[in-house]
């Protein structure tokens, strides 16, 4: 009994971690995500379930990265976004909020605008891949929600990102 409890706790901790990495910076809920679903084997809604939010986050990739000051979608980012579009097209019961982020090298205002550019660049690419515009919204957090907190390029490169956060719903 004791062992089982420990394993369950470990799974919970992993689940929490995964949620943090994949979830919205503003706490926008990733609807339908099952935090218990990180255990071994197929669990409906778990990361091995291709229709799950966890699968979207972990296997397809919910984020794309950008170069300094840029909002151009790189070839690597295109691959990720194409996968996101495919998933969204196959799972019409979800909408997405695309969060644009910047690293801390820049003023607050400029970074808000830059995050807006990045989120929209990702959105435009998803639309070009057939996702209905009505299912996609954007928001910028500028430099307010870094993922990595060091002050070197190793962290900055992870912070210059657009994250696609899913929510259950049919869109507007």
């Amino acid at each position: 009994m004791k062992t089982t409890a420990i394993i369950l706790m470990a799974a919970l901790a992993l689940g929490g971690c995964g949620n943090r990495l994949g979830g919205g910076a503003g706490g926008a809920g990733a609807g339908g995500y099952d935090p218990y679903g990180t255990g071994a084997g197929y669990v409906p809604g778990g990361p091995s379930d291709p229709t799950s939010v966890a699968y979207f986050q972990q296997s397809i990739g919910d984020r794309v990265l950008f170069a300094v000051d840029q909002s151009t979608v790189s070839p690597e980012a295109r691959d990720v976004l194409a996968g996101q579009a495919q998933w969204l097209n196959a799972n019409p019961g979800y909408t997405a909020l695309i969060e644009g982020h910047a690293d801390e090298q820049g003023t607050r205002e400029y970074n808000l605008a830059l995050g807006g550019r990045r989120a929209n660049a990702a959105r435009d690419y998803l639309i070009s891949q057939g996702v209905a515009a009505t299912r996609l919204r954007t928001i910028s957090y500028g430099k307010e929600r870094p993922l990595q907190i060091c002050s070197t390029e190793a962290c900055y490169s992870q912070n210059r990102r657009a994250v696609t956060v899913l929510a259950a719903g049919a869109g507007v």
Partner: protein
Amino acid sequence: MTPRLTTFLRALAALLALAGPAVAQDSPGPLRIEITDGVIEPLPFAVPTFVARNEGAGGLAQDITRVIAADLANTGLFREIPQDAHIARIGSFDAPIQFSDWKAIGAQALITGSVLAEGDGRIVVQFRLYDVFSEAPLGDGLQFAGTAEGWRRMAHKVADAAYSRITGEDPYFDSRVTFVSEQGPKDARQKRIGVMDYDGANVTYLTSSDAIVLAPRFSPDGSRIIYTGYESGFPRVTVIDVATLQKTTVGGVDQNMSFAPRFSPDGSRVVYSAEVSGNTDLYALDLNAGGTTRLTTAPSIETAPSFSPDGSRVVFESDRSGAPQLYIMPAGGGDAQRVSFGEGRYGTPVWSPKGDYIAFTKQNAGRFHIGVMRTDGTEERLLTGAFLDEGPTWAPNGRVVMFTRETAGATGAPALYTVDITGRNLQRAATPAAASDPSWGPLLR
């Protein structure tokens, strides 16, 4: 939560000139500091503890004296001669001054005063400023009356009068600053809007930390604060009434984000940025009539707008040339002139209240600077340099700039700093927690 200043404002009596003990000087005497001089020797002053005119005034007399001394000394323009070096005592506010006693300790300015605690919770503060070497008062004596809880404001008024008479500049100590108080780790920072006296006293908070709040800016009369808030989940320009804490979202439409707002000098208009389909442009909102005007239509980022003091022009930041630079255009939109041409990236321009300078953030070679330039872009002068300095705001007299300085790394945190426009006297401002995005309000009345 109602800030004390509003109740105090009602209670503060008009300034009442007292007859000085000697003939007041019409023109400034030899006691004078020119702030624009690059390096100056701080002027030595003495401020013996104000005379308590009755028993209840003793503690306040001491407190008021210390705030006056701190106001003046913290400018870097003045140096207090410690009280334990004084050889004379001021036993009565109206007793003749023995100037030789003050000369002997090297004091060039002497401030004397008294405090009377009236029975109804009100106090009366009197003060005189003397030029020790010419053995004469500098200006008339002054008297302030107000509530005891507003004692710090009366101290600031005294220090403001002394500062103005000696420097010839407008006062600024009796003023407030709004800012963002920050708590928590860097990747989950909690922010709320605070208001404090310019010296960090009397902090109150206007918002909870439930939503991200950014860059609050005072209205010209200090009664409202405009900021970017994520209360709805999306960034919106929001006005909060300082007295009632009532919030109103203004400008922008639901699907877009709006941010970087500032009031016009008469408080009737707001200029801000809105992002539509990834493109950020400038807009102006008439708060009375309600109409919105789009000011720019470029595909580049246009943000961080700030009005000229006469309301006729707007300085802003744009990357239309490839990297962020500063531009000036008519307040109603139209042709913009680029004004920054130095190396690096320029942002968050703020027009000085006197109209003589534009303060800005500059990013160059991996460092951030706060700088000032003339409104035609000449005479650029960097006042600071650090890992991350940004977001200058002007003291009401246009001679001091406050800004955010954030330290690097995982434990990095922001704090507020002030610096003179000469680049002298860099000082950290006292705040109870980490703080960013200061906006200096008007001189209080």
